[in-house]
């Protein structure tokens, strides 16, 4: 299958700090891939470059063959990329269903005068919006919360609502920034299942940032490891697990020098 997103030699600097360094990256259509790396390795910065929050200084990002680097976020979303955030960012004072309806914004076309006059097309569209919003809430199991203020929802529900809002924009590529952060093992397991189902039900390509290695290893078809903004490894989960550079970046000297964790000298005795 053809890659849906291609990044070539993407570099993003902040002052003197190189946050993302000449990153090459590809993700196949309909794949689930992960970007991992220690805190501060440039994962979220890379996400922000894809979604237009940051403009990379160098390099090219192509989405479905079109260059998107430097475009404003609204244009990129309209092209079919949606995302969630590491620390949930819902429209807190709007209701859950309104959040989903905002998500549909790029797929709606009618103007303010249609809204004022209530043209037949507008009435039809709004009816559709409402139905789809309820469907989406149904899909993520939040219909009971539909008319509640978003920031009054429980934590897990807020995470799911954020995904529903992203889905509402009918994306082809969905970026999930730490979807299981702060979840217990059972919720995490459910989320893994949910992400798979999501991909199949909506014919999506999913790219995620994740810290929980278990999640990453279970779900990803491909893993890219970043450290200091540079790609240090890429491949299938099994390959990544065995890659010495990854182990070094994640686990430090004990593991890197070839000792297993158990054999590491107990210096702290």
């Amino acid at each position: 299958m053809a890659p849906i997103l291609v990044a070539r030699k993407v570099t993003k600097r902040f002052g003197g700090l190189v946050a993302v360094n000449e990153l090459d990256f590809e993700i196949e259509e309909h794949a689930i891939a992960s970007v991992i790396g220690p805190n501060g390795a440039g994962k979220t910065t890379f996400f922000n470059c894809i979604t237009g929050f940051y403009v990379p200084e160098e390099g090219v990002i192509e989405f479905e063959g079109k260059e998107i680097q430097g475009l404003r976020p609204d244009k990129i979303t309209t092209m079919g990329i949606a995302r969630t955030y590491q620390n949930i960012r819902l429209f807190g004072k709007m209701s859950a269903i309104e959040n989903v309806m905002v998500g549909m914004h790029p797929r709606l076309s009618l103007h303010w005068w249609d809204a004022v006059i209530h043209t037949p097309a507008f009435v039809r569209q709004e009816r559709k919006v409402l139905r789809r919003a309820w469907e989406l809430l149904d899909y993520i199991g939040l219909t009971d919360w539909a008319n509640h203020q978003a920031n009054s929802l429980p934590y897990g529900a807020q995470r799911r609502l954020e995904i529903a809002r992203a889905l509402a924009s009918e994306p082809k590529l969905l970026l999930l920034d730490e979807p299981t952060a702060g979840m217990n093992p059972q919720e995490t397991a459910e989320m893994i299942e949910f992400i798979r189902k999501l991909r199949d039900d909506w014919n999506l390509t999913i790219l995620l940032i994740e810290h929980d290695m278990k999640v990453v290893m279970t779900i990803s078809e491909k893993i890219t490891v970043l450290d200091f903004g540079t790609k240090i490894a890429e491949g299938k989960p099994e390959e990544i697990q065995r890659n010495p550079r990854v182990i070094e970046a994640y686990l430090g000297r004990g593991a890197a020098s070839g000792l297993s964790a158990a054999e590491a000298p107990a210096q702290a005795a």
Partner: protein
Amino acid sequence: MALLELHNVHAYYGNIHALKGISLTVDEGEIVTLIGANGAGKTTTLRVITMLLPPREGTVTLNGEDLSQYRTHEIVLKGVSMVPEGRGVFARLTVLENLELGAYTRNDPSGIAEDLERVFTLFPRLKERQGQAAGTLSGGEQQMLAIGRALMSRPRILLLDEPSMGLAPILVESIFDIIQEINRQGTTILLVEQNALMALQIAHRGYVLRTGEIVLADTAENLRNNEMVQKTYLGME
């Protein structure tokens, strides 16, 4: 009696229940580490100890004294010092000014000068750069500055939040060496780390957090050998 003790601490961010009954102790002279994934509540625990996020339930005591009656800036006077996540150096202030602010609560110029020398001995790089704005330092140097600054208040217990974050492995090693050195000189340390195995190599004891709860508590050695710890932090089946 433990130097620092948390008993059944519950804390919330808005309506999000971030800590669900944490109890832990740190004894005088120890290095204790808290490990766990992102969002497990490690940083929150430190914020509770320094009253940046006062607990809604439970107690935090230092040497038997309840800390929740104090505000953050008074906690420092009690002998707790924290190196925040992401270092939190004052980027627009110089290295020297940052260190001086570390001794903000103190009024003994000679003692301060002594401690400044001690920090410069631990981190010779900082001495070279004392006139420079802290924001221009590299990540490793900023981490050194943050630790040095925290030492300037002569804390009894030092709270470290992810000192290895965003640092090259070689630097991580030296930072961890220095942490051990500081501990040897008599400062108790509570270390929060994602780099679990690294942290368990220098710590005496450790706690594993998951979604706001402590799921494991043991000596560092036992934790290193624990299958679950290995699996979770290596992803090995």
